[in-house]
C-alpha cells in the first residue's frame, strides 16, 4: 500500500503525535486489562459484561424495512 500523501507532515508536530500515540497505546493495554478483569469477575458471578464501546448495529436498509414490516 503506497500512500500518496503529499502534504508536509511537520516535524515537531509529528514527533509529538508519535509520543502521544505511544502513551495512548499504553492506555489501550490498561483498558484491555481492565476489561479482562471486569469480564472475569462478572463471569465468576454469572453475569454478562456490557459491551464497553457500544457500536451501532450494521444493518442494511432492506433489513430495516423487513423489521418495520414485521412490526
Amino acid at each position, binding site marked *: 500500500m503506497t500512500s500518496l500523501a503529499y502534504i508536509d507532515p511537520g516535524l515537531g508536530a509529528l514527533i509529538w503525535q508519535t509520543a502521544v500515540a505511544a502513551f495512548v*497505546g499504553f492506555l489501550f493495554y490498561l483498558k484491555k486489562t481492565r476489561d479482562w478483569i471486569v469480564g472475569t469477575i462478572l463471569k465468576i458471578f454469572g453475569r454478562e459484561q456490557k459491551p464497553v464501546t457500544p457500536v451501532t448495529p450494521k444493518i442494511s436498509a432492506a433489513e430495516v424495512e423487513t423489521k418495520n414490516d414485521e412490526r
Partner: protein
Amino acid sequence: MSGDAPPQPSFRDPAGCCLLFNQRVLRFVAADAVAEFEKFLQTGCARQFVAARQLASTRRLMETEAAPLRETPELRTIFEAQPAGAIFEHERIPFPSYPHEWPPEMLRAAGRLTLGLARAALAEGYGLKDATPRNILFRGSEPVFIDALSFERRNPADPIWLPEAQFVRAFLLPLLANRRQGLSLAEIFTTHPDGLEPEEVYRLCGPLEKFTPRILSLVSIPTWLSRNSRPDNANIYKPRLLADPEKAQFILASLFNRLERHLQSLTPASGKESTWLDYMVTHSYNDPAFAAKEKFVREALREFSPARVLDAGANTGHFSVLAAEAGAEVVAVDSDAACVDAIWRRAREKNLNILPLVVNLAQPSPALGWRNAECPSFLDRATGRFDGVLMLALVHHLLVTERIPLEEILRLAYEVTNSLLVIEFVEPQDDMFRRLTRGRESLHASLNMAVFERACAAHFEIVRSLALPGTSRRMYCLKRKPGAG
C-alpha cells in the same frame, strides 16, 4: 475553479488533477490510482457522504463522453503532462469561496466536516491524505467536501494520521490566532495558504500563555520538539506499524477525539470589537422608514425573481434572508467578520440558501496561489454571475470612507448583475453620512438626488424609486441596460 479563463488544472496531488472546463468540474485520475478511486466511490461511506450532501457527487465519464474531451485542444496539453487513466466529473458548487473569505465559524464547520469524514471513512479502511480547508466549499451555508481523491486506503496497523499537522496548521492555529491575537482569517490565509506553523503562533504568545494546556499541546511542545530535532533524521518519517490493528484504531480514535475537542473549544471571539454587529438595533431609520424599505426590496425581488442575488454590505443579513426566502441563491458579503458569522449562524438555523463571505468591496479578495490561478479573485467569480444585486445603506460608505467615485460604484454593480440593482441613496445631509465625513462635507457638496440619478442612468434604467419617510434616503429599483458598459 471558476470563470471562463483557460483551464488551470490543480497539480499538488500526484494521483490526479482537477479543473473547470466549460462550466464543468472535471477530474483526471492517473492510471495507477483509478481502480482505488473507483473502489472508494463504491464504498458505503462514500455513498453515505454523497447522500448526506457532505461530499460532492462524482461520476466516471463513459469513453464516448471522455474521448471528445481528450481531443479538445485546451485539454490535450494537460493529458500529455498528466497521463490520465480516466476522467471523472464532479457536481459543481454554485459559488466557490476560500478560507480567506470565511468567518471563523465557517472555518470551524469546515474543520468539523473534515474530521467527521476522516473518522467515518476509517471504519471502512480509508483515510484522508490531506486535511486542508481548500478541500471544502460551501453550498449555501453547508460545507461540502469536494476532493474525493483525498481519500486513500489506509494500512489498518498504522496509528499515525500524517495530515494531523496540516489540520492543526490550517484549522486549529488560525482559529486560535483569531481568538487570542485577533488576527483575521483573511490576514492569515492570504499570506499563509496552508495556515500557521506552530513556531509562528509561538512567537505571538506571551511567556505564561505558552504553558496554558491548549497552547502547550498545539503550539509550544511541537515548537520545542522541532527546535531540538534534526530535520534530516529520516527515522521520524518512517511508518510505524503496530502488530495489533485494534490498538492502531484505538490510537486514531483518541487522536480524532482530541482534535474535535480542540475545535469545539475554539469558538470565535464574541464580536465585541465589531462596529456593525448591532446595526439592525441601532440604525437611524424610524419604523415606517424601515418597513417601507423592506416592502420596496420585497417588491423588487418579487417583480424580477432573480435566481442569484449578491447582497453587498449585508450586515447581519436581514435582506439576504428576504432574498433567500424569495427563492434566490444568495451570496452575502460584508467586511465585518462578526456580522458574517451572524449571517452564517442564521442561515444554518433557518436552512436558507445563503453563502456569507467576509469581503470588503473596496478591497475585494485578490487572486491567490501559483500564477494567481489557484484561487480566482472575488470579482472574477462575481462578474456576470448574479441576476440581482442589493446595495443597501452601502454607497455612502464607499463614497466617503473609501473615496470611491459614484460612477465607479455603479459600474461595478453593472458588471456584477445581469438584471436587477436595488440601491439606496443617502443624501449628504443624513446623520450617518455626516458622521462618516468627519468635517469633510465640502467633498460631497455637489452630490444630490439629480446627480445620483444621472449617474445611474448611464448603466441602468430607473424602474421606480421611493423616498423613505422621515429620512433623507431614497430607494431605487434599477434595471440593467444591456450594452451600456
